[in-house]
């Protein structure tokens, strides 16, 4: 088809609702929730790029009730009133739409999709050369589809979309677009509370319409229809007609529509960019059409100006040309850990940086001088690069990555995004492979300038972030806190940088023979499991193939997939999904075990031996600026994922050894989280138990079951243990039942009794903010204290990985608190 002109009609409210519910509650630094705006903008940019429309309109609902509400009082009655933080985003979306120069359409008494229907029909009539595409988050507008109009709808969250034409609708429903209203008349629409005919589902509705065409015709031919369905149809006849009517979009709303006024105009880049920045949508900025050119123009303008005023200085120099450095220097190494250094940039303020390719005595003296304070991004890495080049680095004073992390924990920004966020300066992300190649092979102008710029920008970042740290610390002091975010940064995080660098450098010795032995042993177990699984399934297949596994489980073995999530390709075989059918067939447990073994084998046993140095020592990387909780994590390899209490985890750990003549000393805090919980909640009985040195789990079991300590059996203790952990991590009844090995009813009862016994524990669970206030001045950090604001936590709610999230293999304890399964089941609340 030749390139047609296109009109995009945006069903704004449907998109906003969709985005609000599908995305985690993204919050700006100021605390404004912007997830729906983000989702909307993302779809808008996608649509602009994909369809390159000539014309575009965004339609919105107004607050006034529509004729549907007037005719049918239950209309959308079951729809829970959307929270205020959704409505607060609508004006923001409009602001954005206006910045894009997109006309807004709205009319009292009608919904956005009625307007769209009207515009679509008018366009079809008056402009035969224009194709109409409705962009929406639901399927209410499918009825508009014909050879000229299509519907672009989101599916499954925000990530996936479908362009519905007549064929696609037929494939999905077996119906024509104009039968979609009849379909809703029969089937109803739960989201709008349209009743339809009770007892008629998707399938029956489609079959009836395939045979009779319309709702009216079905009722004309009632006598032909078999009794069961006929009775239902007879009973709900009024409702059916009514539902159809309400589902039918009004395509003759009395409005003027002039296509020319909908022409997609160019828009002011500055306006849109400022708005996107204000809402901190840095990733979207890069998708903005014309953004890079716009920024380049600005950059050029700026650099011309700067050159004229002689303000900026990135120079390649000999060390003796370096100006005197007194107090601060920002450093940026040109190289990688374990490689020979190409050179480095030294920034002396936010405008000047110097590149030296030879690290001579003069430079070494500066780097080793504790009194000269060093600024950088990820200084630990600089320490290790320099250390590998026999250059000690001392006086690490301000790591901008760590400062940014403390100010906005869990946001985990790349350097480029941080620079954009804090300084509003756009730096193109480096293509890693390409970037490295140029750095290694030639010292071209650009490479050294880049590194100089990095050093200079880090200097600016330090100035900005230092102010932010100061500001929050002042507020904390006024609030009566003795320890502030600044103390945390200066007294804990920064001193830790060198300690971690030294730990990474030291590494730990790995016994490869032991690993190989375990790997072989594991091979046999994996093989055996493989055979058992195939035997149970009665068919030969590859257990690692999800496609084959799906077929075997849900089709061949007919394990019911009722609760299983459906993905693009069919029912899911992901671990959390399989958990749901664990009790239905013993093969599931075998598959889980197979997967766990297979994963351990590939991630640790077969990989670790290749990761060591020539002395068989393994150097992991500790990450100080990743988790939302403030805990450290490790990568390459991630040692946190070695299971703790399993036999296999134990076996893997035997391969970590001490050198000849040395021994390993382990010092492990015992029950630290429960002790902190006791301390923070102030629960007297829990504190007494710890003070008297009693076993907390036995004590809990005794309290909950109202028996003496010495009557507590093994099973009771382990249930209490699961509960103790479960409660502080807000585990669901389901999760608790699973880890304690009791049924759900028992679990509910147990939890009820627990809260009766630990009243403070309950308030902590139900009202996290109260819990936070209980935390006395002793709690050190912002992380520990500032969580009174739930918003902040909500934002982090779906962010990076704290210790206890996600991976099934993180079995710290029998309780495995807050595991991946817990999250999917609503916690019924302690009373219910």
């Amino acid at each position: 088809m030749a390139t047609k002109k296109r009109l995009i009609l945006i069903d704004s409210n449907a998109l906003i609702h969709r985005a609000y519910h599908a995305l985690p509650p993204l919050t700006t630094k100021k605390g404004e929730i912007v997830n729906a705006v983000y989702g909307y903008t993302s779809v808008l940019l996608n649509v602009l790029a994909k369809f390159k429309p000539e014309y575009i309109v965004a339609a919105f609902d107004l607050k006034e009730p529509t004729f549907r509400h007037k005719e049918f009082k239950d209309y959308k009655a079951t729809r829970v009133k959307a929270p205020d933080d959704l409505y607060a985003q609508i004006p923001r979306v409009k602001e954005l739409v206006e910045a894009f120069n997109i006309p807004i359409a709205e009319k009292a008494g009608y919904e956005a999709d009625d307007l769209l229907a009207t515009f679509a029909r008018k366009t079809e009539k008056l402009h035969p050369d224009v194709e109409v595409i409705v962009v929406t988050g639901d399927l209410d507008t499918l009825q508009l589809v014909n050879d000229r109009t299509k519907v672009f709808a989101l599916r499954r969250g925000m990530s996936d979309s479908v362009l519905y034409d007549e064929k696609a609708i037929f494939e999905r429903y077996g119906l024509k677009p104009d039968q979609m209203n009849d379909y809703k008349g029969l089937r109803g629409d739960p989201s709008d509370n349209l009743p339809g005919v009770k007892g008629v589902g998707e399938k029956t509705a489609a079959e009836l319409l395939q045979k009779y065409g319309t709702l009216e015709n079905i009722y004309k031919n009632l006598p032909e229809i078999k009794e069961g369905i006929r009775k239902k149809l007879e009973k709900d006849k009024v409702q059916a007609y009514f539902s159809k009517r309400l589902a039918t979009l009004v395509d003759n709303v009395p409005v003027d529509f002039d296509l020319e006024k909908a022409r997609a105009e160019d828009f002011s880049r500055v306006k849109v960019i400022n708005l996107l920045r204000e809402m901190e949508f840095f990733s979207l900025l890069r998708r903005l059409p014309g953004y890079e050119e716009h920024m380049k123009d600005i950059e050029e303008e700026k650099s011309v100006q700067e050159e004229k005023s002689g303000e900026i200085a990135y120079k390649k120099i000999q060390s003796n040309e370096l100006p005197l450095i007194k107090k601060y220097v920002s450093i940026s190494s040109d190289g990688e850990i374990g490689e020979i250094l190409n050179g480095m940039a030294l920034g002396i303020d936010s405008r000047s940086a110097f590149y030296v390719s030879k690290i001579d005595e003069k430079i070494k003296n500066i780097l080793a001088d504790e009194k000269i304070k060093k600024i950088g991004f990820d200084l630990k890495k600089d320490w290790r690069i320099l250390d590998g080049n026999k250059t000690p680095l001392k006086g690490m004073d301000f790591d901008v990555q760590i400062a940014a992390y403390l100010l906005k924990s869990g946001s985990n920004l790349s350097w480029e995004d941080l620079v954009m966020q804090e300084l509003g300066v756009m730096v193109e992300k480096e293509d890693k492979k390409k970037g490295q190649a140029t750095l290694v092979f030639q010292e071209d102008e650009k490479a050294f300038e880049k590194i100089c710029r990095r050093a200079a920008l880090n200097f600016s970042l330090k100035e900005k972030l230092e102010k932010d740290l100061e500001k929050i610390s002042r507020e904390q002091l006024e609030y009566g806190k003795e320890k502030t975010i600044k103390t945390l940064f200066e007294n804990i995080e920064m001193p830790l940088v060198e300690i971690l660098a030294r730990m990474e450098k030291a590494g730990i010795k790995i016994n490869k023979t032991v690993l190989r032995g375990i790997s072989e042993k594991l091979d046999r177990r994996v093989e055996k499991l493989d055979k058992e699984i195939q035997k149970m399934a009665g068919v030969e297949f590859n257990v690692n193939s999800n496609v084959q596994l799906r077929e075997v489980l849900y089709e061949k073995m007919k394990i019911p997939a009722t609760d299983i999530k459906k993905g693009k390709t069919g029912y899911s075989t992901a671990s959390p999904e399989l958990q749901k059918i664990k009790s239905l067939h013993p093969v599931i447990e075998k598959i889980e075990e197979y997967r766990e073994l297979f994963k351990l084998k590939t991630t640790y046993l077969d990989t670790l031996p290749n990761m060591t140095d020539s002395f068989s020592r393994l150097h992991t990387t500790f990450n100080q600026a990743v988790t939302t909780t403030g805990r450290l994590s490790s990568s390459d390899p991630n040692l946190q994922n070695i299971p703790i209490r399993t036999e296999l985890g134990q076996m893997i750990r035997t391969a970590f050894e001490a050198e000849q003549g040395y021994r390993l000393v382990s010092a492990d805090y015992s029950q630290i989280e429960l002790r902190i919980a006791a301390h923070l909640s102030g629960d007297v009985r829990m504190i007494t138990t710890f003070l008297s040195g009693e076993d907390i789990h036995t004590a809990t079991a005794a309290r909950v079951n109202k028996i003496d300590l010495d009557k507590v059996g093994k099973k009771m203790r382990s249930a209490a243990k699961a509960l103790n952990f479960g409660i502080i991590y807000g585990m669901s009844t389901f999760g608790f039942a699973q880890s304690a090995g009791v049924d759900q009813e028992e679990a509910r009862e147990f939890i009820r009794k627990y809260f009766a016994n630990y009243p403070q524990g309950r308030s902590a669970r139900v009202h996290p903010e109260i819990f936070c206030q209980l935390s006395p001045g002793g709690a050190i950090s912002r992380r520990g204290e500032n969580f009174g604001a739930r918003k902040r936590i909500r934002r982090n709610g779906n962010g990076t990985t704290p210790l206890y999230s996600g991976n099934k293999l993180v079995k710290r304890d029998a309780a495995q608190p807050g595991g991946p399964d817990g999250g999917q089941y609503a916690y019924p609340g302690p009373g219910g």
Partner: protein
Amino acid sequence: MLRNQADRMAVNMPIQGLAADIIKLAMIAADKLIREKYREVRMVLQIHDELLFEVPEPQSEKFARDIKAEMEGVFSMSVPLIADVKIGDNWGEV
């Protein structure tokens, strides 16, 4: 579901946050102990709530006692902090 997860985190967060700070304080205390009294000891890993050290054999018993005392004293709460120390030739033994 998100809301639920957020509430879960809300309780989890202060606990994890304080645990994180305590372990970091322990690492700083351990580093100081090593620099002052055990120059040949190396701190090699930090996993979960555990610190792992490589210690010359003759010093291991004494170091274990000292590090236990250091770690238990880094932060004061209404309940005692307890550090379990173990000595072995590999990580599986400790």
